C-alpha cells in the first residue's frame, strides 16, 4: 500500500491538507492508517477546520483498503463454484486417475515428487497430450530442463496409427499440438514474469472457446528454487512461497489445474525425502510420490498428501508400464474394504 502522497493523483480528496493532518499523527502510508485508532483520528478531525473533508478523506482511504481483499463467499456459493467450474481432468493413465478419483482437479496444485528418472516428466507429457486431445482447452508447459519432447507427445496422441500418414490424422494432430504451448524458463524471476503475463491475459480475454487454458505444468519447480534457497538471506524462501501462492491463485481464480514436479534429496537415515523443505510441504494440495525399480519399466505411484483421502491407508500402489510406443496401461483389481466405518479402496495388481 502506497504512501498517502502517491494516492493524491487518483483520489484528489487526499490533498496536502489531509496529508499534513495525517502526518501530524505520524501517519504516512495506508498501512499506518490501518494501525491507527480510527475513532480517535475522527475525533481529532472534528476539531480541525475542514473536518468534513478530512472525514471524507478517511472514508476514501478505508474504501481503497476494502477493495483490496477477495469478496466474502458463503458455503452455497463455494459449492456452486465447485460444481460448475472445478471439474476433473484425466491424466491419461488409468492407474493415476483411479488413485486421484478421476484425475487432476481444476483449482488445485498437484505435485509429483520422485527421484531421478522415475517418470515425472513422462506423466507431465502424458497429461499434457491427454488434456489437449480430449478436453477443449489448451496447455501451458513451463520447462526448466529442455525435457519437453514433441515426439513423445506425438506418440501419446497418435497411439493407434502411424503419425502423419493419414491426411485427416495429420490435421487433427496439428490442431491438438497447437493447443500445447511450451516455454523454457531458467530462473524464478522469468517464471514470475511469465505467470503474471498469463494472469493478465486470462483476466482480459473472453472466456470459453478453444483458447481457454486448462492445464499449467511447471517441470520442474525445484530446479528453479534450489539455487536461491538457503544461504544467508531469506529472500529465496520468500520467492518460493510467493511462487507457490501465485500458482494456487491462478488455479483457483482462472479454473486451471496446475501440475508441478519436484525432486528428492537424502534425508535422515538415508531415506530420501522431497526437496524444497518443510515450508513447501503445505503448498501443494495433492502430493504424489513416484518411484521406479532400478532398470525396470514399472513405476509406483503413492499419495503423500491429499485433501480428501486418508494417507495412512494410502500406500495405494498402482502400476503403470511406461513403454515406447505404447501408452500407459494398467492391470489391477479392486476390493472394497471397510474398517472403522471409513470405506476406501485397496488396489493391488494381479
Amino acid at each position, binding site marked *: *500500500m*502506497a*504512501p498517502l502522497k*502517491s494516492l493524491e493523483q487518483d483520489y484528489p480528496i487526499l490533498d496536502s491538507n489531509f496529508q499534513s493532518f495525517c502526518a501530524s499523527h505520524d501517519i*504516512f*502510508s495506508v*498501512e499506518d492508517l490501518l494501525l491507527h485508532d480510527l475513532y480517535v483520528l475522527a475525533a481529532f478531525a472534528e476539531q480541525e477546520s475542514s473536518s468534513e473533508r478530512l472525514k471524507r478523506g478517511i472514508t476514501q482511504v478505508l474504501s481503497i483498503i476494502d477493495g483490496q481483499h477477495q469478496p466474502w463467499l458463503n458455503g452455497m456459493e463455494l459449492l456452486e463454484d465447485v460444481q460448475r467450474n472445478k471439474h476433473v481432468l484425466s491424466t491419461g493413465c488409468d492407474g493415476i486417475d483411479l488413485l486421484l478419483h478421476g484425475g487432476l482437479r481444476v483449482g488445485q496444485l498437484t505435485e509429483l515428487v520422485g*527421484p*531421478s*528418472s522415475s517418470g515425472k516428466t*513422462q506423466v507431465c*507429457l502424458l497429461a499434457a497430450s491427454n488434456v*489437449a486431445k480430449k478436453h477443449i482447452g*489448451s496447455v*501451458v508447459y513451463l520447462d*526448466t530442463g*529442455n*525435457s*519437453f*519432447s*514433441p*515426439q*513423445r507427445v*506425438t506418440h501419446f496422441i497418435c497411439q493407434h496409427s502411424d503419425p502423419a500418414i493419414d491426411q485427416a490424422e495429420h490435421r487433427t494432430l496439428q490442431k491438438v*499440438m*497447437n493447443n500445447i*504451448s*511450451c*516455454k*523454457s524458463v*531458467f530462473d524464478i*524471476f522469468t517464471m514470475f*514474469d*511469465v505467470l*503474471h*503475463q*498469463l494472469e*493478465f*491475459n486470462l483476466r482480459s*480475454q473472453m472466456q470459453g472457446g*478453444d*483458447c*481457454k487454458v486448462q492445464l499449467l505444468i511447471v517441470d520442474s519447480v525445484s*530446479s528453479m528454487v*534450489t*539455487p536461491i*534457497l*538457503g*544461504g544467508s538471506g531469506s*529472500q529465496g524462501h*520468500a*520467492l518460493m512461497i*510467493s511462487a507457490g501462492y501465485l500458482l494456487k491463485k491462478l488455479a483457483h481464480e482462472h479454473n486451471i489445474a496446475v501440475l508441478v514436479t519436484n*525432486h*528428492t*534429496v*537424502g534425508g535422515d537415515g*538415508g531415506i530420501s525425502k522431497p*526437496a524444497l523443505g518443510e515450508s513447501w510441504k503445505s503448498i501443494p494440495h495433492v502430493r504424489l510420490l513416484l518411484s521406479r525399480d532400478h*532398470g525396470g519399466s514399472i513405476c509406483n505411484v503413492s499419495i503423500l498428501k491429499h485433501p480428501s483421502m486418508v494417507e495412512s491407508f494410502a500406500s495405494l500402489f498402482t502400476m503403470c508400464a511406461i513403454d515406447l510406443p505404447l501408452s500407459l496401461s494398467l492391470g489391477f483389481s479392486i476390493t472394497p474394504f471397510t474398517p472403522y466405518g471409513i470405506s476406501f479402496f485397496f488396489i493391488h495388481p494381479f
Partner: protein
Amino acid sequence: MEVGRLPISASQRGKLIAAGYTTLSSFSSLSPSHLARDLKISDNEAAEIMRVASHSRRLDGSAGGCGTVNGAQTAWDMLHEEEMFPRITTSCVDLDNILGGGINCKEVTEIGGVPGIGKTQLGIQLAINVQIPVDYGGLGGKAIYIDTEGSFMVERALQIAEACIEDMSECGGLLRKDFQACQLKMHPNNILENIFYFRVCSYTEQIALINYLDKFISEHKDVKIVIVDSVTFHFRQDFDDMALRTRLLSGMALKLMKLAKDFSLAVVLLNQVTTKYIDGSFQLTLALGDSWSHSCTNRVILYWNGNERYAYIDKSPSLRSASAPYSVTSKGIRNSASNCKRIKMM
C-alpha cells in the same frame, strides 16, 4: 507483494517495503530522485530499480494470443524445428542407434562411468565429429572443450582427427564420385583449430567460465557443442558447505540449460561415479548426489560388461532405455568388434 518478484537485491527490496511501496504501480509515477530521497539510496540505484519495475510492468501488459504467454512455442512448431537440427554422431553405429541418431542439440547430456571406460575419448570424438561438414551429414560447427582434470591429450585428438578425415574421404569416395572437386580441404590442423580449449583449476574458475560462455558463444556463433570434462571434479573434494555446493551446482546446471536452448547447441557433461547404498546393496551411481541428477536432460552410463564396454541410457524424455556395446580403438570410438551386434532392450 508485487515488489517481491523484482530481481533486485534483498536490501533494496527491504527499503522499498519499509517506505510503503509494495506494488509496482505505487512508485512507477515517481521520479528517480524522489524515490532515492524516500529510500535514502543513490540516484543511480533508484533509476535502476525503476527501470527493472517498468520492464516488468511492460511485460505484464503486453498482449499474447489466446491466453498463451509471450515467447512460447506450440508443440507443433517445436516438432518441426527438431527435424531441422541434425544430431552429432558418436562414430559408433550401435551407440548412435540407441541415442536416436546421436547427441541432440538443445539438450544437456550427462555421460558418466568408471575411470578408464572412455569418457574423455568419447568427449574428444564428439568434439571432432561436430566439425563434420554439412555435406557429409554433420553440423559443420566448432567445439568448446572445458578440461577440469587435465586429461585432454592433443596427440590423441590429432590421431582421432586424422582417422575421421580418412573415414570421410572413404565415404566421399564411395558416394559422390563426382564431388572430387570439392573434396574436403580438411586437414587435421584445421580440425584442431576449431576446438576451443579451456583449462580450469578450481570451482570458482569453472563457474566464472560458464558465466562467460554466454558472451563467448555470441561472438563465435558456429560453436555447436560444449563439452565439460569432468563437471564434478572440483566439487567433490574440500567442500565444507554442502548447502553452498548444492546451490552452486543447480545454478550452474540452469545456466548450461539456458546456453543449450538459447544457442541451439549440445552440452555434454562428463561425470565420475561413486557408490551408493540402495535397497540393501552398494550400487554405482553418478557423483554429486540426488540434486545434480536432475540437472541433465539425458543421462548415459558407461560400464564394463565382462570385457566389453557398454553404454546404457539411464534417463531420457524420449528415448527408450537400452544398452549398446562400443569400443575404443586407435581411431577413436568405434563399433564393438564382437559378433553379438544385437542391442539389448532393458
